[in-house]
């Protein structure tokens, strides 16, 4: 029993050390998130859209990549963009890229999982974000 307790304590310690090891990198990411949120405003993101569905879908994906914050904020902002006449394709790509892609966390992801895995995962996520956004809008329009 005693050795089990020690072993469990050791497991917790190992897990805590795993987090402690990447703490500087994580704090750096948190710092960057703060900078992005303060310096890249909603107005700046909204101004990127032009009204052309194809162009805006790509812009939506890229804007979602650089934007940071709670997913809920992306829904609110997406709702505002829809109200301004931006296409649902672009808004769908924007809210999806917001949660699946993140420029800010790339250094940490590459440090932890390796550059190749990070590049492939993000490339796939980028492509599938566009495909998923377009397919969702098509399907929803077909149903309605």
């Amino acid at each position, binding site marked *: 029993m005693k050795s089990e307790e020690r072993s469990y304590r050791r497991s917790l310690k190992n897990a805590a050390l795993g*987090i402690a090891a990447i703490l*500087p990198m994580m704090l750096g990411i948190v*710092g960057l998130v703060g900078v992005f949120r303060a310096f890249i405003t909603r107005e700046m993101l909204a101004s990127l859209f032009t009204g052309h569905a194809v162009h805006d879908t790509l812009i939506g994906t890229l804007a979602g990549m650089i934007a940071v914050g709670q997913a809920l904020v992306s*829904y609110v902002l997406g709702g505002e963009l829809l109200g301004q006449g931006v296409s*649902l394709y672009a808004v769908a790509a924007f809210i999806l890229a917001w949660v699946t892609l*993140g420029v800010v966390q790339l250094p940490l992801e590459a440090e932890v*999982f390796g550059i190749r895995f990070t590049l492939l*995962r993000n490339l*796939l*996520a980028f492509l599938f974000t566009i495909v998923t956004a377009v397919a969702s809008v098509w399907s929803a329009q077909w149903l309605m």
Partner: protein
Amino acid sequence: MADVTQKSPRRFRLRGVKFLGGVLALYAALFFWREAQTLTAMRFALEVLEEIVPILFVVVFLAGALHYWLDPKKLARHLGEDAGWHAWLIALGAGILSHGPMYAWYPMIEDLRRHGLRDGYITAFFYARAVKVPLLPMMIYYFGWPFTLFLSLYIVLAAWIQGVIVEMIERRSGRGFWSEDEE
């Protein structure tokens, strides 16, 4: 392919110290350029920190429990080389249910990867996180239920396809696509 059930000894090493230094230098530079906005950035950063600290505790607890309860050989069998469709369900389900920013989960996923968790499942886990169950009512309110339904379904499908693609690439590359940049 190395025996994934064997843990390589890992030396404790702080990672990203230079990166953190760079970010602090960026704050210092921004402070002289836009003082008020930089202070806002610091406040936002503190808010994010407050948000992720409890999640990090959960991650430490979960990772510790996994370390203690799971036999690495069993884990490798369930989420490693010989895992079947149920491993995809676990990866996708865990992604949908996980909470907080993606990077808070990196240490635990890294640890599981060292025990044999395959990269395809990691890819599927990360993409499936786009389904935010508690926020579904909000999404329905803004974009309607047909869009929310299809988006959620397609996210899960896309997560699985991406995982399969990563697996195929890894298998084709033979010795392990990622071996160069791994420790």
